[in-house]
């Protein structure tokens, strides 16, 4: 089993571990709900080193990435990030990723569970383009600091970071190590994600978590994968293996904003040099015909937890299936994301043997106060 550079830090904070895609990761330290609330009210530190970090160099990198990514990236300014998808020929989602554009190279952050698959797909798609692909996952570490008080914590160390715009990043030197700090995250809160060299990562973290284990008053507290899941669900963000899969297309998933269907029309240098991205033809057809299902948010009566695979009902008809659910720690009622037939108006979920009433509600379930 893989361990991240922060393994000992998790042990010191009393983590309960879980196997996540071959990585020994903290699911929680004290309580999933408390960690969730701490992120909403203060600041949480997540180890996300298990996510894949893949570096691309070579003079045809931009063109190559336009080939494999659904979203146009040629117009990205230097030091910015963009959410995109990697699709299969059928338009199904191979992975959802964050693209980083540096002055002289590119970086993709991919899901831990898809890293090997995506690496193989990328290598197979290079063809005769001059691109070098380097998996930096195990040589680097990555953390997410999320919550309304993150900028307060970070502001004491850097003036530049709090002035970063959303989906932009900077490169900071901390002692002798280079940190990539982006204003991104997966919780619905303000915050940053930091990529750093693996061999110095634990030392860097001690600077952030100065208070040490067991300090209940600390503004920044570690938070595990359990809280990460309920936070992203409240924020209406998809999770691969739940809302996204090889059999689900991004248009049905409500991610049309991350698909550039006119990519092959872009002039040379501004796009893919007239080449469609992988999956473009299939996605054009889906977009033209209209998707057969849609991703919805549901709010349930009672206090029971809807779970992946449960049937979604309209009257006594099955019209869909739950992809994720939880008892929302912030809202206090159960929430779920589900795929339903495009024309359906769901009004319940089959929970156990009983139909629990549910109402469709717009995503996200939770929006942070501005």
């Amino acid at each position, binding site marked *: 089993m893989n361990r991240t550079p922060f393994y000992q830090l998790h042990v010191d904070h009393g983590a*309960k571990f879980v196997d996540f895609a071959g990585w020994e990761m903290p699911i*929680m330290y004290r309580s999933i*709900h408390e960690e969730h609330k701490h992120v909403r009210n203060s600041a949480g530190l997540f180890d996300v080193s298990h996510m894949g970090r893949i570096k691309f160099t070579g003079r045809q990198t931009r063109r190559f990435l336009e080939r494999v990514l659904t979203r146009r990236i040629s117009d990205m300014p230097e030091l910015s990030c963009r959410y995109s998808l990697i699709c299969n020929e059928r338009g199904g989602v191979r992975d959802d990723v964050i693209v980083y554009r540096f002055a002289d190279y590119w970086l993709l952050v991919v899901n831990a569970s898809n890293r090997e698959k995506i690496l193989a797909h990328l290598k197979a798609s290079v063809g005769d383009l001059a691109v070098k692909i380097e998996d930096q996952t195990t040589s680097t570490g990555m953390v997410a600091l999320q919550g309304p008080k993150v900028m307060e914590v970070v502001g004491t160390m850097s003036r530049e970071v709090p002035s970063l715009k959303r989906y932009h990043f900077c490169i900071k030197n901390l002692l002798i190590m280079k940190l990539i700090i982006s204003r991104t995250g997966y919780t619905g809160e303000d915050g940053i994600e930091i990529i750093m060299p693996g061999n110095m990562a634990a030392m860097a973290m001690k600077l952030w978590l100065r208070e040490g284990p067991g300090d209940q008053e600390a503004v920044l507290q570690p938070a595990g994968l359990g809280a990460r899941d309920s936070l992203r669900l409240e924020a209406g963000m998809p999770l691969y293996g739940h809302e996204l899969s090889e059999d689900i297309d991004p248009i049905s998933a409500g991610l049309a904003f991350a698909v550039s269907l006119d990519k092959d029309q872009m002039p040379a240098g501004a796009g893919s040099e007239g080449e469609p991205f992988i999956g473009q033809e299939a996605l054009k057809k889906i977009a033209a015909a209209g998707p057969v299902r849609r991703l919805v948010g549901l709010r349930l009566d009672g*206090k*029971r*937890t809807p*779970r992946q695979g449960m049937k979604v009902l309209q009257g006594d008809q099955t019209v869909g299936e739950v992809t994720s659910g*939880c008892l929302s720690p912030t809202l206090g009622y159960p929430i779920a994301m589900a795929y339903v037939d495009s024309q359906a108006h769901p009004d319940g979920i089959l929970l156990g043997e009983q139909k629990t009433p549910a109402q469709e509600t717009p995503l996200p379930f939770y929006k942070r106060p501005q």
Partner: protein
Amino acid sequence: MASPNDRRYASTHEWHKLEGQLIVVGLSQFAVDELTDITFVDVTRASGPIKAGQAFGEIESVKTTSELYCGLDGTVAEVNTQVVQNPALVNQDPYGQGWLIKVKPADPAQLEKLLSAAAYDQSAAHH
């Protein structure tokens, strides 16, 4: 951490403790740790006669939903409405305020057939 040895355990992780005429039933710390944050406890349907190995309710956590079983024969005398109102009580105090139901045993000697704390801890360790 060793389970308290003032009570007996079922292999399905419920503890059973004699208090006066009644057997108090709750969930072990090991089970609570495995479940993580408990979000829902349903013991309100428990009433009347109950048999050893019979489900008397359900418990839900962030991670999973599971049934609750009684380890001996008897009659349900009381359910803990506190944990229904506040399921986190089971996380906070599984051996005390987080108890689930009280049963009037048909035969108090049945308690001895359940696992001792040491035997339970050994079986939980191999879980």
